[in-house]
């Protein structure tokens, strides 16, 4: 039995190695995703184009403008002279934010201890709009505090902010776990379901079933190479994130790898499940992409925070395996927590895996015997 198992696994490797294009996708995809998320796609805001309308044009206002110019977040591309110029500048799309400084600026500041400026932000992308306003406000506040410090207020409340787990607010801390969950799910589920359904489509499955091989053995041995490939992918993602993105694994590396293997097996079972339903390769691909990939993207918490979703969707998100894996990776990798913090998630993944595995093996035995 073992010998037949290895013969089968060997054959499966040959299929994968002969198919250069798929091989390239298998190993290229995680690397490309990490690099794309790391360097091209980012929700950090840098060098946003803004306009300044300076009615004051005095020492106080010019110092503020200098400060804004010095920050890496903003680039002043337009100097306006009239309130009526603001609207056209936004309409052209030339700027994302306009700063209007009143003529009475230094007077307000010195006599009333109250600096009032106007910020007009393009909120067609609400997140960017809010972020820009926040950045600008904090620059202005800093400046104000400095000026006021000279005149001494009776008392001030100054919050001391510490961003724990990710002090530099690097997006990588969020997307490395996310990419890991996505890539593993894609490779394991998509590739295995296609590989299994291909045998059905080609008619070789029939011959295998007439042979003394057990259907369960056929299906399981088809998943083994993908388990190995996915494990290599976890390692390459971790290496990239350490050396290229400077995101180290804070917690126990072996615990992380073990959880990774658990999630790989979950995804492989999902792939087996899809292939036990799908009759053609196209159906398998469609099923995995729409049925698994889209929900993963939306409900794993990687792109959109689950806590903000309506309650029914929050419930729905609980059946997405990637959500749990995403939490596990974040806990171990970013927060440096141990098994006691993630045993619940682990148990849930384990339960899902067992269920999917048993259902699909049963389905196979039954369906293939028809």
């Amino acid at each position, binding site marked *: 039995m073992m010998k037949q198992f290895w013969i*089968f696994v060997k054959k499966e490797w040959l299929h994968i190695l002969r198919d250069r294009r798929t091989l390239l996708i298998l190993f290229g995809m995680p690397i490309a995703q990490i690099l794309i998320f790391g360097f091209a796609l980012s929700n950090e805001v840098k060098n946003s184009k803004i306009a300044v309308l300076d009615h004051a044009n005095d020492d106080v206002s010019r110092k503020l403008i200098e400060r804004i110019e010095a920050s890496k977040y903003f680039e002043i591309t337009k100097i306006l002279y009239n309130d009526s110029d603001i609207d056209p500048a936004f309409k052209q799309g030339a700027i994302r934010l306009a700063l209007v400084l009143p003529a009475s600026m230094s007077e307000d500041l010195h006599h009333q201890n109250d600096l009032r400026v106007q910020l007009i932000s393009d909120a067609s992308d609400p997140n960017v709009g809010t972020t820009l306003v926040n950045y600008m406000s904090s620059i202005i506040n800093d400046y104000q505090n400095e000026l006021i410090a000279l005149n001494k207020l009776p008392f001030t409340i100054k919050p001391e902010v510490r961003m724990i787990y990710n002090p530099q607010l690097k997006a990588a801390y969020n997307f490395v776990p996310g990419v890991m969950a996505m890539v593993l799910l894609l490779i394991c589920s998509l590739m295995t379901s296609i590989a299994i359904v291909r045998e059905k489509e080609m*008619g070789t499955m029939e*011959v295998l079933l*007439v042979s*003394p091989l057990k259907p369960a053995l056929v299906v399981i041995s088809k998943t083994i190479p993908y388990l190995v490939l996915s494990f290599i992918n976890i390692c390459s993602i971790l290496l990239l994130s350490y050396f290229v993105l400077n995101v180290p694994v804070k917690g126990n590396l072996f615990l992380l790898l073990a959880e990774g293997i658990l999630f790989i097996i979950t995804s492989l079972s999902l792939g087996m499940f899809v292939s036990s339903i799908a009759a053609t390769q196209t159906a398998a691909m469609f099923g995995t992409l729409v049925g698994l990939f889209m929900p993963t993207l939306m409900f794993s918490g990687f792109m959109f925070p689950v806590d903000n979703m309506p309650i029914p969707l929050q419930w729905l998100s609980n059946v997405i395996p990637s959500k749990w894996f995403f939490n596990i990776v974040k806990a171990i990798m970013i927060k440096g927590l141990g098994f006691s913090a993630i045993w619940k998630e682990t148990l849930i993944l384990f339960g899902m895996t067992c269920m999917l595995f048993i259902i699909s093996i049963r389905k196979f035995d039954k369906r293939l015997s*028809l």
Partner: protein
Amino acid sequence: MPENYLIEVNNLTKRFGAFTAVDSISFNVRQGEIFGFLGANGAGKTTAIKMLSGLLTPSSGDAKVIGFDVKTHAEKIKKNIGYMSQRFSLYEDLTVFENMRFYGGIYGLRSIEINTKAEEILNVLNLLNERNILVKSLPLGWKQKLAFSISILHNPPLVFLDEPTGGVDPITRREFWELIMEAANRGTTLFVTTHYMDEAEYCNRVSIMVDGKIEALGTPLELRQQMGVTNMEAVFLSLARKSSRSEL
């Protein structure tokens, strides 16, 4: 001396819900015989083959294949039969030899046995130079002959061939049948389904299935005489016209 039957079928029936795909068929296949299993599309041939090869459990009736009951000993049957379907049973992205090694391996043959067998087959099929090329670059006829040779690589006493010559040109079909007859001469029993009535003439005995039932059984000569016609085509047509199930 009782005849040595490799397949014994008694009132074998398969129902899918209200539909009776195979309706109480009975027949025997002798050792070393080429048994033609004819019938129009949808007559129930494939369902019958699946029951005989242990893929499908019968609803009622019983069948013994190589002395094993299909209901209780499907695993033993699987070890001892060869199978080739109308669709391709070879892996196109593996080489000729890799295919042989794989199929030999899953039947538990040792590497030495596989190697000897492989040389033998390559020799017979004149494929010695194609040993290490991918199957997808072989012409269709060669693939089919290779698929057949691989299905008997583990020397099974009984082989099921489910429309093995679909889509092949007449010359290759002729060559294919020469391989079948050679195997029969070596004592292998062959159970063949086909659409081609000229191929039916090569069989020792044929059965014709219509709407799940066996309507005729005998040597091609007997059947022609019974029906008073000169060729198998006419025998087949006159029986198949009774069908309410299939479109001809």
